[in-house]
């Protein structure tokens, strides 16, 4: 029993650590994205080497964030894993269908502007958030 309780406490602490770690990786990815997006124009006047380095740093930190997300997901208990995966599946499906549809709108000249990837990212984030909220409400 004592061993099981120790394991349980270790599990709770590990989950909290994984969540904080994922937060740090996400912030780092946002920071490197900002540097890669605005650095060339505002800081080093489109010099090639710093631009390439900033993009590589962004990709490296992005992969780190993916691994941190995987670790976070695996550290959750089974119900929260299910909620997370359901929300992810919904977000992926909506992103695929709406993303392709959005792109098609320009091809068939129903919209005059060029579709922006940021709109799709926002849609997927909002869909994931809605899926997480719906999942938590479902099992409340």
């Amino acid at each position: 029993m004592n061993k099981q309780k120790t394991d349980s406490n270790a599990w709770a602490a590990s989950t909290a650590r994984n969540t904080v770690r994922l937060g740090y990786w996400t912030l780092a990815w946002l920071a490197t994205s900002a540097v890669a997006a605005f650095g060339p124009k505002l800081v080093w006047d489109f010099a090639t080497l710093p631009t390439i380095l900033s993009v590589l740093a962004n990709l490296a930190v992005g992969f780190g964030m993916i691994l941190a997300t995987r670790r976070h997901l695996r550290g959750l208990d089974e119900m929260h894993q299910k909620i997370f995966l359901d929300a992810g599946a919904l977000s992926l499906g909506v992103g695929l269908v709406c993303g392709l549809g959005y792109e098609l709108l320009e091809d068939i000249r129903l919209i005059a502007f060029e579709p922006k990837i940021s709109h799709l990212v926002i849609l997927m984030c909002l869909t994931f958030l809605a899926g997480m909220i719906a999942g938590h409400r479902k099992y409340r």
Partner: protein
Amino acid sequence: MKNRLKVLRAERDWTQARLATELAVSRQTVNAIEKGKFDPSLPLAFRAARLFELTIEDIFQDDVVS
């Protein structure tokens, strides 16, 4: 799937948080299982059975059978 987790927990005067700690899951998960909204995996059902020193069938009952 029906279960007797709430009764077994009450017999020991445990809170949901205490049971969640014992089973290494969140309190929300214990609450969802007790209410029958979430069916636990086999490993979690075994953990509960070991914890209460019962068989899985003593704790969880299939709706169709019962």
